[in-house]
């Protein structure tokens, strides 16, 4: 197995995340920001799982489990927000 | 029994009036009769206790109360001859003033507060009198400030509160300076008790300049209360207080406390020898002399009776300081005896001024015309006091001035004579016109604010004035009597100048 495969994947996914952050920053609607947070959740899960394999730290899988379990909490909290929550938002 | 008595007696004597004061507070405004009884009972009890202590002292005992506040810092109350002099004076005058004040304030509001603080004030004065070391003296000195302030601002008018503020500004600054000097001295010499002839002269300290600065700090601290120029400005302002307060402030408690403290510092802490060795006497004497002239001169320009009396106080208290500052047994006798004499005379004057103001609404000098015919007894007392102040024999004031002059010559400071003469002339210049108006001018058709006063009030107030006036005559006439202040003082001074 190629030794740098797993860390390479992690780097790749992290870069991916960084790109996704652009969407959080740009919005324009709160829903956009929230959806990129969603991306963040699912990608981080993958990162954690790969880290668990790479660092031989099985506890990371538990972390991933928590992430994926609790991702919905934030979505649900977001769902309760008033519609115009992001008013006055946007491009700097 | 006797040792126990000797230990507790000084404390009890101090506490009598304090307890009375607190009891008056607790009793409240309404219980007038109880208050009067408390006042009188405490004053009489205190006088008796003083008499008891006096007997013990004469029997050769030294009553002494002592507890430790800090390591090497004791609270000491002790009755020696000098403290008995001041204590007797205050106890006596307290009784008289109380009687006067009860009548004077017959219809005024807030009497519980007044008499409460009045009693506390006397307790502090008694503590000052009996203080056995400088720290104890300081403690009671501060308490005195605290307890007289409510009396100064008693009427609660804007003027009263302003003058209260001035009073605090001066006295608290003074005591802060005092405290620094005290700590310094304490650091150098430890907290020793007062000893005739001085405590630190024995130590042979090689700290001349420190001692001089400490002396300066202490003089400033005491000088504020003693109204030594230029620290006197609070005193005339404090005239807004009720007459009994002025009487107490000027004659007994505050200014005397300052002067008494200076006596203690010079005679019992530094000792006359060290004072003259350090060259401290002369500057102090000069300051005192300047204050005498300055106070008298300013008194000339006052149109308000109490103001004029106030500036007269500024000048008269400095006689005491002048006496001890010159040094030498004779001048010291003159100074110390003036402590008593000035008290008696000045309290008479203030009592009379209070009666003028209270009965007839007379507050200005110009309103005094012909008052001698309207209030002959009071006017007579006023005259005795005024003549004494001028220094006319046989009233008490003459004796003080005589001893001062003689002492100055004996100490080789003849310039003092000039000061005395000038001051006497000025005294005459500001008192004689008053007497002239009182006796020789025609009374006006209507007095500024005449009020109906009950006979009891008249008796109490005029009676008090007559009592003190008679005392000032008596101490002058009977100066040769064994128990007279003069003899007493002479006894004390012989200890200082063996």
């Amino acid at each position, binding site marked *: 197995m190629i030794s740098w495969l797993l860390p390479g994947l992690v780097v790749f996914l992290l870069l991916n995340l960084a790109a996704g952050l652009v969407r959080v920053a740009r919005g*324009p609607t709160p829903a956009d920001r929230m959806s990129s947070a*969603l991306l963040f959740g699912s990608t981080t899960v993958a990162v954690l799982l790969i880290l668990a394999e790479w660092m031989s730290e099985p506890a990371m899988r538990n972390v991933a489990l928590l992430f994926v379990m609790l991702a919905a909490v934030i979505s649900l909290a977001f769902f309760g927000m008033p519609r115009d929550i992001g008013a006055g938002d946007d491009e700097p | 029994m006797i040792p126990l008595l000797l230990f507790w007696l000084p404390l009890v004597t101090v506490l009598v009036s304090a307890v009375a004061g607190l009891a008056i507070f607790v009793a409240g405004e309404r219980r007038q009769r109880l208050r009067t009884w408390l006042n009188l009972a405490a004053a009489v009890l205190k006088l008796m206790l003083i008499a008891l202590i006096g007997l013990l002292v004469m029997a050769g005992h030294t009553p002494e109360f002592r507890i430790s506040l800090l390591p090497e810092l004791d609270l000491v109350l002790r009755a020696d001859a000098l403290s008995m002099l001041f204590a007797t004076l205050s106890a006596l005058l307290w009784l008289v003033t109380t009687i006067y004040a009860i009548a004077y304030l017959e219809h005024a509001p807030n009497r519980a507060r007044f008499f409460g603080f009045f009693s506390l004030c006397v307790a502090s004065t008694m503590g000052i009198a009996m203080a056995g070391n400088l720290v104890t003296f300081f403690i009671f000195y501060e308490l005195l400030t605290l307890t007289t302030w409510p009396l100064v601002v008693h009427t609660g008018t804007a003027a009263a509160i302003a003058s209260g503020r001035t009073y605090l500004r001066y006295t608290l600054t003074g005591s802060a300076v005092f405290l620094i000097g005290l700590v310094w001295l304490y650091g150098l010499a430890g907290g020793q008790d007062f000893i005739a002839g001085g405590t630190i002269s024995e130590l042979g300290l090689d700290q001349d300049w420190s001692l001089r600065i400490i002396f300066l700090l202490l003089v400033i601290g005491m000088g504020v209360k003693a109204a030594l120029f230029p620290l006197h400005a609070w005193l005339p302002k404090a005239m807004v207080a009720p007459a009994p307060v002025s009487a107490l402030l000027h004659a007994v408690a505050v200014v005397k406390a300052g002067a008494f403290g200076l006596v203690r510092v010079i005679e019992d802490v530094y000792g006359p020898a060290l004072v003259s060795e350090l060259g401290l006497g002369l500057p102090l004497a000069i300051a005192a002399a300047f204050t005498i002239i300055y106070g008298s001169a300013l008194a000339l320009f006052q149109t308000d009776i109490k103001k004029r009396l106030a500036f007269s106080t500024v000048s008269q208290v400095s006689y005491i300081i002048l006496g001890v500052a010159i040094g030498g047994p004779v001048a010291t006798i003159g100074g110390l005896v003036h402590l008593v004499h000035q008290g008696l005379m000045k309290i008479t004057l203030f009592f009379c001024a209070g009666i003028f103001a209270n009965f007839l609404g007379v507050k200005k000098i110009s309103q005094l015309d012909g008052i001698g015919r309207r209030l002959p007894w009071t006017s007579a007392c006023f005259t005795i006091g005024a003549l004494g102040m001028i220094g006319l024999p046989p009233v008490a004031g003459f004796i003080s001035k005589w001893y001062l002059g003689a002492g100055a010559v004996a100490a080789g400071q003849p310039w003092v004579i000039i000061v005395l003469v000038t001051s006497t002339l000025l005294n005459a210049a500001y008192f004689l016109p008053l007497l002239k108006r009182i006796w020789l001018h025609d009374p006006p058709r209507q007095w500024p604010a005449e009020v109906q006063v009950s006979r009891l009030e008249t008796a109490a107030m005029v009676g008090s004035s007559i009592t003190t006036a008679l005392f000032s005559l008596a101490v002058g006439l009977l100066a040769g009597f064994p128990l007279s202040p003069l003899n007493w003082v002479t006894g004390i001074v012989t200890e200082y100048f063996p």
Partner: protein
Amino acid sequence: MSMGDTSLVEWIATSLLVLGALFYLAGTVGLLRFPDVHCRLHALTKADNLGLLLVCAGLGLLACDWQVAALLGTIWLLGLLAATVSAHLIARHACRDHSATSSRTGSA
């Protein structure tokens, strides 16, 4: 187990992992390129879940442990649930505000 065998499993796992990462990339690209919220949600839910599935499968193969594999499967299922629910909630939130947002989207 023989060497070749292992390497075969590893090769499969590696390709699964890489493929999964590519789907993640697709999700991100979609998130950035698609014109409005709903389209972006399409990209996220579907692509990312496929990505997660592939990654989980790859890692499961690598781990060679039934417990781990089961855990990974659970994680994937939960991810599925979270993704659909979140997508629905966000879409709904955006929908109810559709008139307001669409004009905004247009301007952005």
